[in-house]
């Protein structure tokens, strides 16, 4: 069996994984690093539930060969969740009931985090555009937009 070894920073920790050559970042996270917050949805790049950050940019883990993250910085939902607490986005999703089945939530939160890191005070339209690659089949999206707007407001944003 051939294998490749890939070293990268995973949620702030130097990590080395040895996997079969075509392994995706998604499989590596879930089955090799035992980080299961990142979800496998369509595995075709159509649903966004596997969204993680690579060097701060939203990235579809299902379409990323692990080999591509050699030397890069990968952040998953586990990486932004404080021990024993919640990230402001997680708290806002909870308060707004922005998750029903919850399957899309990790991808939604990572896509939203990428937006807020770049643009702390987005408009509702900018939030919708940033989340346009993430499907939710439960909520109808409005509570999700509300939750991200709440955090944008906590960031000291305008009245919106």
């Amino acid at each position: 069996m051939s294998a490749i070894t890939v070293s990268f920073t995973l949620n702030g920790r130097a990590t080395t994984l040895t996997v079969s050559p075509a392994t995706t970042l998604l499989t590596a996270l879930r089955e090799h690093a035992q980080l299961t917050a990142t979800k496998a949805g369509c595995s075709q790049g159509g649903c966004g539930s596997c969204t993680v950050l690579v060097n701060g940019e939203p990235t579809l883990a299902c379409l990323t060969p692990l080999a591509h993250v050699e030397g890069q910085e990968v952040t998953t939902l586990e990486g932004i969740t404080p021990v024993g607490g919640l990230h402001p986005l997680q708290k806002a999703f909870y308060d707004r009931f922005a998750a029903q089945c919850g399957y899309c939530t990790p991808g939604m939160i990572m896509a939203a985090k990428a937006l807020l890191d770049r643009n702390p005070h987005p408009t509702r339209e900018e939030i919708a555009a940033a989340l346009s690659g993430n499907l939710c089949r439960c909520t109808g999206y409005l509570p999700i937009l509300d939750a991200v707007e709440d955090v944008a407001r906590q960031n000291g944003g305008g009245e919106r």
Partner: protein
Amino acid sequence: MTAEAFHLPRSIAEALDLLREHGDDVVVMTGGTLVMSAINGGQLFPRRLMSLKRAGIDQLRAENGRFEIGAAVTASRLASETDLPLLTQAAAGLGGPALRNQATIGGNLFAHAPYGDLGVALMALDAEVELTRKEGARTVPLADFFANGAAARRPDELVTALRVPRPSGETAWVRLGRRQAATAPVATAAVVIERDADGRCTAARIALGAAGPAPMRAREAEAALVGQPLDESTIEAAAQAAAIGCEPPTDALASSWYRQQMIPVVVRRALSQIAAAAPAGR
């Protein structure tokens, strides 16, 4: 069968060596959005994978009114770092933000219909594609590249860059989807029109997406425009002519029949947009 190797060459020279050494055994990708989804979907079982992501072909340069765009430039970068009409519009409408961070201009030329909007924009812009093999590079018009199908690229060649002139006329981009974002097109039209002082069309390029196996030029529609003013009857004639010779794909979003009906619609909308804008130079 699982892949035996993943090659991540650090230069095009290294990539070309690997391609020559392993031939048909190696499947080439860049962002991974097409190849990895085909692997995930059980449609592709490569012996070897080679990614051009680190092969040094991600430069983006503007010189003498032309853009030289490395094959590994992502859709996100096209949307934010170029100001070419049609191409920035196509790039900004591709998938969602995460997909745009991965999908590349070179890779998108190999998308199967109905995907491949970047190629549609590039074709209307009269772009050329650079193909590189060990002995050197050659440049072919993108229209020929698409028209020749699998024969367009020799087995030992890689797509390394696109050369895109800035259009001199007016442009319109119309993409019809079942929803506004992150969906394959039902039909796409990219149009470049040049008009003289009397408002007559002197040149027209219309490229269609989701109308056949690859992006294609609507030559009969273009012929219906040249020499004519951009009025309602000319637009209608061109819109109807655009559907001639199209063989749109069927997928879960739209049937071939439905796409065929929508081709005149997107062309009509694109031409009407241009007609409604003030003619250039007046």
